[in-house]
């Protein structure tokens, strides 16, 4: 192939390189081309004009606000939960372990249906809330609950794996020096695992942001109250195609930022046992 005086590479080596290149190219293009196509289907003017659309901005703000709140709740509740789960053996630990992964395999629409059947005003728990005048379904609270349900496994699994890997020697040493368990957790465990926890948190945020099926089933679709960005994309697909494209592009940009953040933070290693 290349004109040179050195001996040519053996044929099987060339075929291997060609095959490998083809594979890498195919995978990369399959993932990247649809994203690029989004950008080419609209123009910068149309994009900016759509940004001024109140439905687009309300969907953006609602999505960001609910995803952030969902993330904070998952972190505040999930981190101690994962720590206690990892450091202790208790009856039913295996079941809890399996149940944490459940939302990952459950289709989101099914999750939404299940939440509606439980927390809706005709539901097992919801009917009691309804007596007190508390509505759960079709509110922003429902959006947050749906997001927590589908996105929490990402954080919990990551936290579990980090705490499992963390050498208990550090915590035990801190205890012998007189620190309370809570202080050990806050000042020893969390700083050591922070990098991995942040990457888990970022993935959770991305999943919560993109949630569609559970949201539309449980929270409904009301602009400004429950219409998150993915719902707005779907609703606008017919009618205002440009608004749909704009929201899709916004989601792509946010997802891209999330991806970079995950790659940066995931680099930190946990001190192994």
């Amino acid at each position, binding site marked *: *192939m*290349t004109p*040179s005086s*050195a001996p040519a*590479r053996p044929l099987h080596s*060339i075929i291997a*390189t*060609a095959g490998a*290149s*083809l594979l890498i*190219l*195919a995978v990369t*293009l399959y993932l990247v081309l649809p994203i690029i196509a989004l950008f080419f289907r609209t123009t910068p003017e149309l994009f900016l004009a759509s940004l001024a659309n109140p439905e687009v901005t309300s969907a953006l703000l609602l999505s960001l606000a609910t995803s952030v709140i969902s993330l904070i709740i998952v972190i505040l509740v999930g981190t101690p939960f994962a720590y206690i789960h990892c450091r202790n053996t208790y009856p039913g630990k295996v079941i809890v372990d399996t149940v944490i992964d459940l939302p990952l395999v459950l*289709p*989101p*629409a099914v999750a939404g249906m299940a939440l*509606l*059947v439980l927390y*809706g*005003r*005709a539901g097992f728990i919801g009917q009691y809330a309804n007596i007190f005048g508390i*509505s759960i*379904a*079709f509110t922003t609270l429902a959006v947050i609950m749906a997001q927590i349900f589908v996105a929490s496994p990402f954080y919990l699994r990551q936290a579990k794996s980090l705490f499992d890997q963390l050498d208990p020697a550090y915590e035990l040493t801190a205890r012998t020096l007189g620190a309370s368990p809570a202080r050990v957790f806050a000042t020893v465990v969390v700083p050591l695992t922070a990098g991995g926890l942040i990457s888990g948190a970022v993935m959770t945020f991305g999943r919560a942001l993109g949630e*569609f*099926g559970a949201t*539309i089933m449980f929270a*409904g*679709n*009301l*602009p400004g109250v*429950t219409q998150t960005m993915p719902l707005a994309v*779907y*609703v*606008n*697909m*017919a*009618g205002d*195609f440009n608004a749909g494209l704009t929201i899709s592009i916004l989601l792509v940009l946010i997802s891209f930022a999330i991806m970079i953040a995950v790659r940066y933070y995931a680099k930190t290693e946990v001190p192994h046992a």
Partner: protein
Amino acid sequence: MTERKHHLSIICIVSAFLIMTALLAGCTGTSSEQKVTGAPTGTPVVMYEAVTTPLRVAEVTTAPVTAPATATPKPEYTPADGTVIAYTAASLKGASGKLAEGYAAMYPGRSVVFNLDGTQALTTQVENGAYADVFISASPKYTKQLTSGKYFVDGTVKTLTTNYVIVILPAKNPAGITSLADLAKPGVKIARAASTVPVGIATDAAIGNLASSTYGQAWNDSVNRNTVTYETSEPSVATKVALGEVDAGFVYESTSTAAKTGTYQSVTIPKSDNYLQTYSIAVMSGSGKKSAAKDFENYMLSDAGQQVLLSYGFRPA
């Protein structure tokens, strides 16, 4: 040595790219029987596969089945050749089972598969390349849109059936709604379809008519305030009402008539204020089996097909 390796890698990548582009260009456009793209996840899509009769080669008494013009011609008739793919407005979900049976009864050996979704979603799919043989639209707006986009075969666009809007209530009627005026009571939860959905268009029109003729703008505003969700298809509205999660929902009369006794209560909208939705049926210009599609359309427009629709609460065309 490394420099030569470097050159070799670049040549491999470029040739791989060219090969892939050639393959992509070659694959698209030859086969007319492309995969049906389903609706995006999250919306309830019902695909109904009619009872396919066993392989009968020479017993088709009606119009001959045309073999689709594919790159690899099929030598003998198989039931799959007669499967018509019908992109259908979601409000026909309840009737789809009987319609498929009736079609197979009229044209033995044939079958139909329904892709049921909001007409607006189906329109967008078709405009972006989805394959269908027949399109049943619940709204003149989308029929016009597709006609001007030349998606239909000329002369096949026919009125299929009509439908009025009605307000349904959960069986227990938790909010105690007895009239349309009650819909404006504070605290009432209403479900309706989004304004891009055909039944949503009809709902908005009916509410507007009711406001200007009888109940006033304040009533209109209250109804809008009481709306807790704008669903993306008509059956979703009915589901929310059936579950008792909302106090009222705007759906088609057909949904209320065809439901099992005791599922809903209802409040009718006077005909003078109501919006008569007109459904159309048409053969797709991109269909690979136009004669089978025309046969299906003929069935839907025939007495047999119309009877099924009437039994499910639709009105005559």
